């Protein structure tokens, strides 16, 4: 007779915890409410609106607009500008990611390998992360200036007769932006690698020495590299997501030029949306961008995760 049993249970036993739980639930909801409202208004609603917008021909200021299905995405397939932007973004990511990871790892290993100058070098390599991107882009513009820039002055001194027009030549512009992007990301990756290195137990290195590793390379292959696995995977994903978002340097230095040679995804989205006011098309580009980011995160969690985390 379970019903009778529970009915007969003394009221005070149940009432108190219940009242407590109800109070806790109320407090929990109230505390989450402001964040919930802001989340709904500033993130969820507009993001959903972007998805809907991608299937319309909405233009800012236009009086009429309507559903056009996947027409925006079909247009994208034909749009040479979009294709170039996508290709350039992939090239940029493919350039910045490996280079900034290798240099960041190298810097971290070299800094960690000794005691002298640790704080100094860490600060120097990290400096670009805290520097105003737009201002540093201006500094790069001067450094890379075809006629008055110090880089080309130096190249002429070395005997290069006609050094490249770094930011205004369609052959060199993506490489130049990639170099700036690498410069921006080294410090960031270095800090993450330093954190990863300091988490490796010292005892493992001692065990490796006693086990007979004689060279730095042996210890790197036996301990450092495998133990950095999770960090490296993480840095890889983060750097790709960060560099897929390239916008500031393009907007400041090239505006996608010359002749779309440095057009990238977010800059195209910005131009379509806020210069040409074609919000529907811009939203469709945003969705492609979002899909790429989500794809990278998915790759990280599914495909690679199992191989670098050791139970």
């Amino acid at each position, binding site marked *: 007779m379970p019903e009778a049993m529970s009915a007969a249970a003394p009221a005070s036993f149940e009432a108190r915890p219940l009242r407590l739980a109800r109070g*806790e639930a*109320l407090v*929990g*909801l*109230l*505390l*989450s409410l*402001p*964040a*919930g409202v802001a*989340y709904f208004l*500033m*993130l969820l*609603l*507009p*993001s959903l*609106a*972007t998805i809907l917008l991608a299937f319309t021909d909405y233009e800012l200021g236009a009086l009429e607009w309507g559903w056009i299905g996947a027409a925006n995405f079909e247009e994208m397939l034909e749009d040479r500008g979009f294709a170039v932007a996508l290709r350039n973004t992939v090239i940029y990511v493919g350039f910045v990611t490996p280079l900034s990871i290798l240099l960041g790892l*190298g810097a971290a290993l*070299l800094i960690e*390998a*000794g005691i*002298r100058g640790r*704080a100094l070098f860490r*600060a120097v*390599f*990290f*400096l670009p992360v*805290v*520097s*105003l*991107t*737009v*201002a*540093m882009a*201006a*500094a790069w513009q*001067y450094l890379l200036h075809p*006629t*008055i820039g*110090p880089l080309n*002055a*130096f190249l002429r*001194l070395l005997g290069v007769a006609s050094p490249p027009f770094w930011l205004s030549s369609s052959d060199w512009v993506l490489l130049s932006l990639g170099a700036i992007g690498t410069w921006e990301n*080294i410090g960031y990756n270095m*800090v*993450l690698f*330093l*954190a990863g290195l300091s988490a490796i137990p010292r005892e493992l290195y001692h065990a490796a020495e006693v086990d007979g590793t004689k060279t730095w390379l042996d210890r790197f292959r036996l301990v450092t590299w495998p133990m950095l696995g999770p960090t490296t995977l993480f840095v890889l994903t*983060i750097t790709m997501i960060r560099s897929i*978002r390239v*916008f*500031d340097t393009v907007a*400041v230095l090239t505006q996608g030029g010359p002749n779309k040679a440095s057009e990238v995804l*977010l800059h195209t989205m*910005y131009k379509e*949306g806020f210069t040409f006011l074609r919000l529907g098309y811009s939203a469709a580009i*945003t969705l492609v*961008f979002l899909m790429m*980011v989500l794809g990278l995160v998915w790759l990280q969690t599914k495909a690679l995760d199992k191989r670098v985390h050791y139970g």
Partner: protein
Amino acid sequence: MAKRDLRSLWADTPRLLVLGFLALLLLMPYIWMISASVKPLDELFRASLNLWPERFYGVENYRQVFSQIPVFGYLWNGVVVCAGILFFQLLFAVPAAYALAKLNFPGRDLVLGLVMLGLLVPPHVPALPLYVAFSKMGLLNTYAALILPFTISVFAIFLFRQFFKALPDELVHAARLDGIGEFEIVWRVILPNAWPAATAFAIFSVVAHWNDLFWPLIVIEGQARATPALGVLYFRSDEAGDDFAALMAAAVIMTLPLVLAFLLAQRRFVEGIATTGLKG
């Protein structure tokens, strides 16, 4: 002791040389930026490789920047925007994170799921509809337009929740036994214990929004509400044109505040970015 140090200094030399070379390479933009900012324009056009100017022109260049653009206005806007964003981020995220970490309430898993979902969405995604909404409400060119979209940081909720989960439950229980109200617990018990996470997040947030160009470029026109990033951009296209000396002076001025803050609190910055590293 002394003998060992001496020996390792020799062994250390290759490492220091490589690091020094890399560091010098990385510092190139800064070195030339500062050098150009104290040279007269005619010297710049000669493209000499001398770092030190033949004729020191720093005073004139910097005076030109201060006279042509409202430097302090831009910096003040930057401070207001960063402070406003951080204030609301903490105000909204800390209580929610506490509730998610320590309280049981219906829909908690749903809220947590939404937070994780939000982590995946870059801020560029909601930008278009927000722009339309702000423009319809006449909010363009206001502090509100700069601050409102970033008042909710799912990353802050996530970070603080992780941190609060690691705090012992006894802390909350003891506070309840002492008769501190549930809402007071957040500010009087939880937040004082969350300083490491709060500092880390503050540094992450300020660095991100001080440097942001994308959103200010969308919602701001004109100098009145321009942030430092926009200020440099305006100065570059309007006033300076090809006057690189003045442009470099402006770049130095706008870069300096955050770099100085970093140099004064290096350790905190590096730790802050390392602990918040998971957000791009």
